[in-house]
């Protein structure tokens, strides 16, 4: 029985949260990796793009809620998500037209484009804060749990409860759908293949008559879809606060780089590697240990390797380790 309880505790506090968090990171990292593969720079504005997309979605969610529109038990935010994506895609295409294209025409070095994206980041940062404010916003509605801790205890008779939030289930399902759709697009459609060709060998893609501007446009739209989805799912799962999205930039970049920049499969793997490391290193293992170990060995302390305040240090450390030993990432990506 103890092993079972230990497993349930592990599932409840580590595996489920880390899978949900990892899915959110994976979606974010996919956007970063696509932009890196096609436009050849690290887009620092990605975190704030997620915030922007989530913000638009939240505003429309509130509007829908006021109108009494609901798809209960699912959160109303899902209904507003396509609108959020549309606005974000429009915003990114305009940014490209007004800002990035100018530097692309000059064949600016990647580092210049990175700095440009930093500027875009600050502008977006400001826009989001001006429109929705700096405070935490709640927009989750509908059924909160798929499995409630109390129900689970009653059902199984175990001491340990298992809670599975709707937002977590939704995150995982939406991520699976998004990833399948993305890979289908990249591997099966003409436009998707031309994107891969452009990412692989820009000069040859031009020689083959692939239109770079179209490839760039499609990339921004895909990035907008991925960023908005990731942002909304993260907001549903935790809460929406502009600053946390800015902070998400580090684990997202760590995921993309750990997996191999420019490699979509790597971005997904990287997302889960980072999420699991973060959660496992900052989780207090006392409960699991008490169940598994004999009573005499039961730990007195929390058995927490790192305080949760240090979770960003985890992504940073993994990033450094991977860059030292495998500069192109776990999957073969481009070296940074």
């Amino acid at each position, binding site marked *: 029985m103890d092993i079972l309880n230990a497993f349930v505790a592990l599932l409840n506090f580590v595996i489920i949260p880390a899978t949900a968090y990892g899915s959110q990171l994976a979606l974010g990292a996919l956007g970063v990796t696509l932009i890196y593969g096609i436009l050849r720079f690290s887009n620092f504005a990605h975190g704030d793009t997620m915030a922007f997309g989530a913000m638009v979605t939240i505003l429309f969610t509130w509007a829908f809620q006021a109108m009494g529109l609901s798809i209960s038990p699912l959160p109303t935010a899902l209904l507003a998500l396509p609108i959020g994506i549309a606005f974000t895609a429009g915003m990114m295409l305009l940014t490209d037209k007004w800002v990035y294209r100018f530097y692309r025409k000059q064949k600016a070095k990647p580092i210049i484009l990175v700095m440009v994206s930093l500027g875009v980041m600050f502008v977006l940062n400001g826009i989001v804060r001006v429109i929705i404010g700096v405070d935490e916003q709640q927009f989750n509605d509908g059924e909160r749990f798929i499995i409630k801790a109390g129900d689970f205890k009653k059902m199984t008779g175990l001491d340990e409860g298992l809670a599975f939030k709707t937002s977590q289930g939704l995150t995982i399902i939406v991520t699976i759908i998004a990833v399948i759709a993305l890979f289908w697009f990249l591997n099966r459609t003409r436009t998707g*293949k031309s994107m*891969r*060709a452009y990412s*692989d060998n820009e000069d*040859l*893609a031009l*020689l*083959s008559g692939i239109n770079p501007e179209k490839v760039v446009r499609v990339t921004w739209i895909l990035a907008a879809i991925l960023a908005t989805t990731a942002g909304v799912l993260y907001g549903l799962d935790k809460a929406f606060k502009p600053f946390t999205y800015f902070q998400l930039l580090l684990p997202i970049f760590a995921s993309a780089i750990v997996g191999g920049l420019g490699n979509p499969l790597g971005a997904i793997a990287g997302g889960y590697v980072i999420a699991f490391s973060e959660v496992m290193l900052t989780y207090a293992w006392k409960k699991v240990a008490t169940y598994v170990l004999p009573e005499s060995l039961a730990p007195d302390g929390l058995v927490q390797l790192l305080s949760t305040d240090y979770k960003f240090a985890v992504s940073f450390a993994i990033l450094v380790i991977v860059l030292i030993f495998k500069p192109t990432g776990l999957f073969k990506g481009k070296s940074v």
Partner: protein
Amino acid sequence: MSEPFLIGDRMSGGYGQGPNILHGCTIAVDKGQIAVIVGPNGAGKSTAMKAVFGMLDVREGAVRLDGEDITALTPQDRVGKGMAFVPQTNNIFTSMTVEENLEMGAFLREDDISQTMAQVYELFPILKDKRRQAAGELSGGQRQQVAVGRALMTQPTVLMLDEPTAGVSPIVMDELFDRIIEVARTGISILMVEQNARQALEIADKGYVLVQGRNAHTGTGKDLLEDPEVRRTFLGGT
């Protein structure tokens, strides 16, 4: 004498703001013929070909395709006009399969490409066996076949090859030259830069020896091979 199908007529030019690399250099090829550009290192062989393809500024002179002045067109527009170019390096999409490479070559075409693809596979049977494999995993000679195949997918009238046999073994080189002759027989003009001057001139209908961006010798491949001056100064041996 009527004008050749493709001609870079007395071209002078260089890269960007840089000095002229080509000085009144003329390169031409007729329909279904093979023209080869040879010359010592740094003679501007590749540069001359890139000038014909619009990859550098032609400041004087002109490039004409089938009588039409295309000097001002971008390389991409020239692809649309039926010119295909196989660069010396990075000439395949390494992360994509052989078949996807060919598909990308035909990106501009709206019609059914399966027939052209079948022709390419007929020309390079090994590619058909490896069509699901990533092109980057192939050997040097096979990669060159993918590169040439990709260029052929546009159904070009002119095929330009920048040192197609660089870095492949002599056997593979002979094989590639055979294939290039076959391509020429289908009516496609071939313009090619080659390091292996002797072998290349043997299959050439027309040869251009460039020295320091100028035409040094011009003639049929056979003439150049027999020209004592060319043999002494360039081909080496007796």
